[in-house]
């Protein structure tokens, strides 16, 4: 199954792109752009987790924001009670994984549209709990004065923040790409392709669904812990159902099961509008309209456009056929 070659093919381009983005941010970013670079890194992590679940398991999760929120709040609360910030990523991953496990076990037998709605409900429950458990979360006012990794973002430490978040992006990319080429990944795609056939070769579907939700949730939990230690303040609104929907949409826009696509789509649809200092209102509008238009004309996302562009370029520039490049079909001008 050519595991290592496939791993490199999916990991290297995406990781290289991330490294370039991070490097550009390190070299050229002012304080504002550093902030954008950090937040975009967080988005990339969230989208990668979702993309892994949707692409390999073939099921929609609409509660990434919930797992993100749990990772963020738990690590914030522990830090406010004295935990050193460098433990936060581990805490975020653990909290995400545990909550993913719980959700996965609750939804073992639920699939398809039902799973989308149930996870949507779970996401909203988390948001409501963050609002309502006022004794712990301080309700809608949120947590203020959470410790951070390197203090408030400034010219002195922006490089540290960028290295931490984009380093995490690359690690997440590597782990997910490894997982995708492991037997676990193959089993997931077997289940996605045909549940009945997967059962006939001895795979218990529920088990793999629980595992996938756990992985996606752990990734989101990590993003939450990183965000906390940058922002220093949390409010429930940051973890709304709308964010889950946007994460799902960004993953789909990138092209399901394409890590490179997920990175590009997070950059294009989240990073660029922020870089251009477009107001939140227009970001929202543009994202919505682009989403509609993309789904009309390229429902398989940016990676579909990428494949099309490459084949078009081959045809135009090199005279190759649209299919596999093959020496026999090369027409010399």
């Amino acid at each position: 199954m050519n595991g290592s070659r496939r791993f490199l093919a999916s990991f290297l381009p995406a990781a290289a792109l991330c490294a370039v983005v991070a490097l550009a941010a390190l070299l050229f970013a002012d304080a504002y752009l550093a902030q954008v670079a950090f937040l975009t890194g967080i988005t990339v992590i969230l989208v990668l987790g979702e993309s892994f679940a949707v692409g390999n398991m073939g099921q929609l999760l609409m509660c990434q924001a919930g797992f993100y929120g749990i990772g963020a709040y738990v690590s914030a609360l522990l830090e406010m009670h004295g935990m050193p910030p460098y433990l936060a990523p581990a805490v975020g991953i653990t909290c995400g994984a545990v909550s993913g496990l719980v959700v996965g076990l609750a939804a073992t037998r639920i699939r398809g549209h039902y799973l989308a709605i149930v996870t949507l409900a779970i996401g909203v429950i988390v948001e409501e709990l963050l609002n309502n458990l006022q004794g712990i979360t301080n309700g809608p006012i949120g947590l203020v004065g959470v410790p951070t990794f390197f203090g408030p973002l400034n010219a002195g430490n922006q490089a540290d923040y960028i290295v931490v978040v984009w380093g995490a992006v690359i690690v997440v990319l590597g782990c997910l790409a490894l997982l995708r080429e492991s037997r676990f990944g193959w089993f997931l795609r077997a289940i996605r392709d045909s549940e009945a056939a997967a059962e006939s070769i001895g795979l218990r579907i529920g088990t793999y669904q629980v595992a996938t939700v756990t992985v996606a949730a752990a990734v989101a939990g990590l993003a939450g812990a990183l965000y906390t230690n940058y922002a220093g303040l949390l409010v429930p609104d940051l973890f709304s159902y709308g964010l889950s929907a946007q994460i799902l949409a960004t993953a789909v826009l990138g092209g399901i099961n394409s890590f490179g696509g997920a990175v590009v789509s997070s950059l294009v649809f989240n990073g660029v509008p922020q870089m251009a200092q477009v107001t939140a209102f227009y970001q929202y509008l543009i994202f919505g309209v682009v989403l509609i238009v993309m789904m009309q004309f390229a429902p398989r996302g940016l990676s579909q456009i990428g494949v099309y562009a490459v084949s078009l370029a081959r045809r135009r520039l090199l005279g190759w056929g649209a299919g596999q490049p093959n020496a026999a079909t090369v027409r010399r001008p």
Partner: protein
Amino acid sequence: MLAFLSSLFINGLVTGSMFMLVALGVTLFYGVLRIINLAHGDVFMVGAYMAFYAGTYLHLPYWAVVIVTMMGCAVLYPILDLLVFRRLRGSELGPLITSVGLSMALESLVQGIFTANAQAVPSPYLNNLVNIGTVSVPLQSLLMIPLTLVVVAALYVFLRRTRTGLMVRAVAMEPRVSQLMGVRPEYVYGVVFVLAGLLVGLAAATMAPELYVTPTMGVELTVDAYIVVVIGGFGNVEGAIVAAFILGLINSFVSGLGLADWATTIALALLVGFMMVRPSGLVAERLGVRQ
């Protein structure tokens, strides 16, 4: 105590009526087109702004506001279908994702036109208190209940007794066979969008006077509608009606216990618990028939 309980009960019926009007559209979309439309609550929101505009700027009488809103939504929905959903027929993921985009686009467009400030829709019945025994209820709320009954009866007659209604049910049950028998699916889809528009328009026009009208008011309603539809069984009209009133009553009584903040959480937890027991909703048997 009795007065308190009966006021909660009436309140629950009113809320349930609203849930039902909104959820019926959602369940029809799923039953007939097999799509999840997460922008349905946002169409309710647009309807509420139509009512606001018609009432506050055009100074139309309230009955005209209701009609304008219903007509407006009934026209808006087929247009949205044409622009947004039509190219994605048969796709499972596509319409859901596009509806997220539609939801965002509608919210920001409305915010662009009317700002994010809360608006109020005028209605002459809002301050008209009706005494039922020891309970006094605004006439506006009370209006919902008979209106809803009329609508349910009309929908029932439409689906059971008319030729078009028969076609809708045929496409919902056997899309391929009904096509062979000469039913044009696009016609039926159009009917469903108009119906969903009429229902959600009615809900918007009658409920908006009692709510703060804001561009994001639809999100929560979408979630509520999906709770109703999942508990009632995707695509099941009768199930949605029953589930809507159950949810309405739960909402009302939970708020009555002073736990208004927890109403949504409790309803959602109920949904998740329900799904754990019946993973494919109330209509598992019906799905078996379809395959």
